């Protein structure tokens, strides 16, 4: 196991690009290699040691044996873990654009907020963000109709607009709130949102699942109410509780499933049966 620690010395107003500093490339590097390395900054390259103190401990034969730790405010460090296939990256602070983009394996954890395009076109692995993230989390490259295809993204804070755009596989779990158009154009995979959702989840979705445990601001006409479901099972996972199920987006003959918490969105239902033993039981179970 090899641990490479980047301790921030100074910040840069122009973003540093870390696309070459991924586990797949640096697993064999020594401290001397880092000292000789120049990191791309704008149209120039500057020594990485101007910005970070780098310490290397242990040995690694493959990228999977590397743990990369970035300590400091990395909100001007782009492409952390971009295209990596194995290993572990921990950012103790914020991170900039493209964290974990196109990664196919390994684990990236950010203990701070993250800018846009986190986990773009992810193929595998796990990306965990303890803070908030901005637009296009787990989305596709612009113009591409195949977005994130595998792996898992967990966001403990809130997600920005168009989270999971063009999702074709994998899972995104947002523990906070989500802005508009979560899961737009998605064709497969699952998005689970614990918090509230602004307008229009699942716009133009063809297939896949969106689960919302909070309140939904406004739904599109393209989603047709299927009634109340209890403990629905989607792709083998049971979501305990009572939900209103929708199918859509029928504006393009989509067959996606959108389930939203029934109680929090009860104003959407014309009939609401207050006395429901089954539901009360679940509520009590949850309260425990």
């Amino acid at each position, binding site marked *: 196991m090899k641990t490479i620690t980047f301790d921030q010395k100074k910040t840069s*107003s*122009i*973003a540093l*690009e870390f696309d070459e500093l991924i586990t797949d490339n640096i697993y064999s590097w020594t401290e001397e290699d880092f000292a000789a390395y120049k990191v*791309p*900054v*704008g*149209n*120039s390259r500057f020594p990485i040691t101007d910005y970070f103190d780098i310490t290397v401990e242990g040995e690694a034969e493959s990228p999977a044996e590397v743990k990369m730790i970035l300590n400091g405010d990395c909100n*001007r460090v*782009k492409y952390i873990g971009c295209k990596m296939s194995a290993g572990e990256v921990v950012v103790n602070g914020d991170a900039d*654009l*493209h964290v974990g983009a196109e990664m196919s394996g390994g684990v990236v954890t950010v203990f701070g907020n993250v*800018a*846009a*395009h986190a986990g773009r076109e992810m193929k595998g692995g796990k990306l965990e963000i303890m803070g908030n993230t*901005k*637009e*296009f989390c787990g989305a596709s*490259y*612009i*113009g591409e*109709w195949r977005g994130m295809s595998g792996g898992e993204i967990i966001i403990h804070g809130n997600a920005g607009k*168009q989270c999971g755009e063009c999702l074709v596989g994998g899972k995104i779990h947002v523990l906070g709130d989500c802005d*508009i*158009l979560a899961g*737009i*154009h998605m064709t497969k995979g699952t998005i689970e949102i614990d918090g509230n959702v602004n*307008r*229009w989840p699942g*716009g*133009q979705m063809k297939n896949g699942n969106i689960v919302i445990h909070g309140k939904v601001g*406004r739904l*599109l*006409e*393209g989603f*047709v*109410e299927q009634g109340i479901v209890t403990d629905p099972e989607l792709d083998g996972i049971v979501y305990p509780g009572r939900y209103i199920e929708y199918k859509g*987006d*029928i*504006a*393009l*003959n989509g067959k996606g499933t959108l389930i939203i918490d029934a109680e929090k969105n009860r104003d959407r239902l014309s009939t609401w049966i207050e006395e429901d033993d089954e539901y009360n039981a679940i509520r009590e179970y949850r309260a425990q």
Partner: protein
Amino acid sequence: MTYEPPVTDYDHIVENCTCAFCGCNCDDLDFLVKDGHVVAVRHACRLGASKVMEDMDQRLLVPMVRNEEGVLEEVDWDTALDTAAKYIAESVRPVFYGWSETSTECMKEGVELGEYIGAVLDNQATICHGPSLQAMQNAGYPIQTLGEVKNRADVIAYSGSNAMNSHPRHLARYAAFPRGYFRQRGRFDRTVITMDPKFSDTAKMSDKWIGFEQNGDYGFYNALRAVLKGKKLQSESVSGIPAEDIYELAAEMEAAEFGVLFFGLGLTHTLGKQRNIDIAIKLVQDLNTNSKWGLTPMRGHFNVNGFNIFMAYETGWAFGVDFCRGYGRYMMGETNTIDLLVRKEPDCFMVIAADPGAHFPNGANQHLANIPVIQIDIHWGPSTELADVVLPGSFISVECGGTSYRMDGVPIWMKKAIDKPETCRDDEWIVRELKERVMKLREEPNVADEYVPNEGLACLLDK
């Protein structure tokens, strides 16, 4: 409007000039010239005519450099160009923004300079029809030339665009009024629909006004698509429009022989942004099952489309192309001017034929105040107050020839009608001079030692 008597006092007429105002690029203008100045313009709208005639209003005539006291000081061309070239050569994250009111010939010099130094090249699309470009990249781009609209269209829809005010001759020359080959009675053969929260001047002359609520665009188009798919609406009204009106509109659009949807910034800059256009494009694609429909973004500047086309064939991407690593990159939120400025990344900013001082959000302009700004323009404007070097250019289509692309992609040669002021230079010349001076000051950064093909090109990889 008061009556203005026709201008009779002129030396000669220059015919078939092109208007350098909006994306309509009307190429049937006659300039009436007296003493080397355009004194009147025939056929143009008020916007175009006043831009051409008042070319000397607040005109930048001499190069200027901001001195140590922070005051713009008149200097000679060499000093100004050398100062500007030094700023560019020393920069790490230069951004070259603008280009929409100059010719593709000038852009050609610009892209060479940008590729050399590793700059971001971006144009006004980033603050206007960028969402339209993003949407077409996601959904497609069914367009037609404006002559097709004139000859064939029987249903014309304006969405989020007040063409009567922004593109005054659009309706008169191309869309609603002209007598087309298959529409010999002009306006009487056409139905005009305006979709706009505001009862705009365009809505006033339309046959139908759909005044959906603000930020309701996406929901409205989604409902319209559902209706076209034969689905029944569940709500009584969508985005403030009664369901029966949506059924009626859908039927009317589907019955069109040739329909065209023109959309403007009302659609691109409300909630949902590019997704509003995205779904409008999908709507047009659905309509083509039983009818014939196309769409066209109502581009603003006369060559804003030209820059996108030019960049696409020179570099592969339309706007916001970042060359800092020696190859092109295009990424929303990363390589666009506003995002870069708000993130306080750029350390040198060249603005050519644009006015960020007037158009950019405050956060972006705050950063512009802190970094060297080079302005190439013909008029004094808010950007001049931010500029550290001012290089007076010339007026394309009046003082200088050049190529531009109309909103529908038709290329037009904009010819020269009068001479430019003696102390000004052509934009093309200025950018070429800057390029040559920068090349002398700094060796080209980020050049690969040898050609390495992209992994996407497997056949070229192993030699």
